[in-house]
């Protein structure tokens, strides 16, 4: 469009088409130059490795020498691998609890901090702080608080109950502890996203609802939630993918332990690849993680499309 405008102003009709061509070419070149820094990075660091992954998942490869094709051996091994099964279940466990919990808390906080209350900016900042704190520091401090004997949490719980959870040293409590920290860390970030969505809802809608006699609860369900649907959908998809890919938190807090009770898929990939130098099999495991993310996201899109059509 810009090219034609400029060309029109440029001069006679005879060389008009040549001008248009030159300008279009220049625009394409400039456009490519603008996206080049990002695209080359994406190509070299993400796209090519991901495509290569499909091949290496059918090979035996230690990162040294050439990968040697071994057919379906990695896939057969995958389906008999107890650690893979446990890691998948742990990842799903984390996602299934972490996603609704974070979403509900973030939405609740966003609604609360969207209201006109004193010190609103302060509380918004406070809620966002955990997200920008270094993960190693977070994990270290929480580990100290979760200490079964001297930790702050159990000392507090000890005032009310006798049978205290073992937190990070217990196979059944380690995952809940990780989920608590994960939720605490991410709730502020998703709150900001939801807050931005809340502020796009026209005040007139609430006024109209109020005139019609809707109470606060009804206004929430019939005005806020429908208007927030696109933001909620975006947040859910992002949250789902980050939950399925969770790695840093378990790596620093529990290193997958005790035993493998908090071993998640991404960490299993890391272990197999970098600690066992078995990059072929690690590719197979990471492809499975990729397919799980893809399937869950596609399901969410399908639900969203159906809802929009309805």
């Amino acid at each position, binding site marked *: 469009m810009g090219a034609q405008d400029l060309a029109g102003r440029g001069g006679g009709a005879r060389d008009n088409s040549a001008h248009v061509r030159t300008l279009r*070419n*220049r625009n*394409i*070149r400039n456009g*490519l130059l603008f996206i*080049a820094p990002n695209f*080359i990075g994406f190509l*070299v660091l993400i796209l090519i490795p991901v495509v290569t992954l499909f091949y290496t998942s059918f090979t035996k490869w*230690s*990162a*040294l*020498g*050439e990968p040697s094709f*071994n057919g379906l*051996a990695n896939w*057969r*091994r995958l389906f*008999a*691998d*107890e*650690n893979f099964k446990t890691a998948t279940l742990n990842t799903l466990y984390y996602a299934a609890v972490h996603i609704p919990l974070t979403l509900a808390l973030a939405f609740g906080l966003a609604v609360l901090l969207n209201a006109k209350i004193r010190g609103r900016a302060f509380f918004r900042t406070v809620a966002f702080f955990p997200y920008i704190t270094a993960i190693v520091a977070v994990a270290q401090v929480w*580990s100290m608080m979760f*200490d*079964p004997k001297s930790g702050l949490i159990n000392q507090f719980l000890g005032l009310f109950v006798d049978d205290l959870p073992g937190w*990070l*040293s*217990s*196979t059944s409590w380690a995952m809940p502890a990780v989920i608590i920290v994960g939720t605490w860390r991410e709730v502020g970030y998703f709150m900001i996203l939801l807050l931005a969505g809340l502020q796009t809802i026209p005040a007139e809608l609430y006024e109209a609802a109020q005139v019609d006699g809707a109470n606060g609860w009804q206004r929430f369900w019939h005005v806020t939630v429908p208007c927030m649907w696109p933001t909620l959908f975006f947040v859910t998809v992002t949250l789902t993918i980050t939950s399925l890919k969770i790695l840093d938190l378990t790596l620093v807090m529990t290193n*997958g*332990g*005790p*035993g*493998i*009770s908090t071993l998640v898929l991404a960490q299993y990939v890391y*272990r197999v690849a*970098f*600690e*066992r*130098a*078995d990059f072929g099999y690690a590719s197979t495991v990471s492809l499975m993680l990729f397919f799980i993310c893809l399937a869950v996201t596609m399901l969410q899109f399908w639900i969203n499309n159906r809802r929009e059509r309805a």
Partner: protein
Amino acid sequence: MKALRSCLAAVAAAAMACSLAACGGGQADAGRNPDGTISISLAGWTLATRPEFQALADAYHQAHPDVTVELKEYSADDYDKQLIADLSAGKAPDVFPMKNLRMYYTYAEPGALADLSDVAAAYRGDDALRGLDDYTIDGKTYALPYRQDVWVLFYNRTMLAKAGVDAPDGTWTWQDYRNVCARLKRALPEAGYADAYPTYHHTSWQSMPQGIALAQQDRGEAREVFLSGDYTYLKPMYRLLLDMQDQGLTLPYNTVSSSKTTYQSQFGTQKAALLPMATWYLGPLADQQRSGDADRFDWAIAPLPQRTRADTAHPKSFGDPTGFAISGTIGGERLAVAKDFVRWAASEDGALALARTGTLPAYFSDTVLDAFFSRSGLPQDAMSRRAITGSAISPENPVGEATQTIQDELNIAHTSILSETKPLDAALASAAKAINGSGLLPGRQE
């Protein structure tokens, strides 16, 4: 479209240039300079605090003035990851250490290492060089040992004397060790060590007790037992450790792992009177006592306690050798010089240079051990020396394709057992199942 094509062509050209440059990195086979000198590169880690690499480079240069050994520093924790990246990019140094045996097969199998069988042949039959056989894969050798640490029992003579308990005399079984700990538990508070434990087990590492159990089992040769897929030989040592942590004779695993306890802080500040640990702690402990980072007390080492009384006559211990390997991409004069450096580092001359830095070399001759023990602050008694020279040393990570997978699975079992989150039998059974299911054990490949 023309612009698009020229852009793509430029990207492709840049990519090709990058890959050519990457390939070229390791091929810099320049040979000798016109003046006859040559320099080879050597990988090392934490060069500022580990003098051994510089000491070897300097001593070799002194003996061979035409050769300069240049050091290239790697991260101590991520050494293997960084080295694999450099090797696959063709940018690895000419000579690099194999930190332990765990990754050795991974390097050797795809041809990343030069064949050093001819250099190794010069040492066959020389009993002073320990650990050479651990590097054999299908009759070939791809690395030569230059360091060999061995696990021993450190003891605080001052604490034992005050508690009225006899120091280890080299005849202890694990049962004796446990009994002594029980006595210490009662006696230490009265001797003025109110917070001290009788012993410290550094269970952050699976070596304690898995390395000991493998070295002292009676089922056969360590490599065969390790690669057999049956890990029930670990049970007696785990039972002992569990019992001892339940009795309060040592800091429990959950505390060790959650508070990231260091063995230096436990033994060095007299919070434990005994410590099974490797000889790499000898030099640093003497140094820390001098600098004030550790308390000053009288200490020494003894052979590890054994499974049976009969075994104490010929104590069995473990430790991986540390060896030098050569990049498989170099050749000609450079390869010849690198091979001579590796041969020299394993020899008595190399060992003497190393011993003076407080590092235990792989060449255990009397001269070398005299040099090693001549460092101030090290124990001088005969038992300490016997702990090193008299122990038969099994590898901790016998070499095979499955080594890393086995160790990783056994580490999972280790944390489950000692955190008491899974019963001993069940944890070992599921490790064995995973290892056998990996298809990596010898004779079970698909």
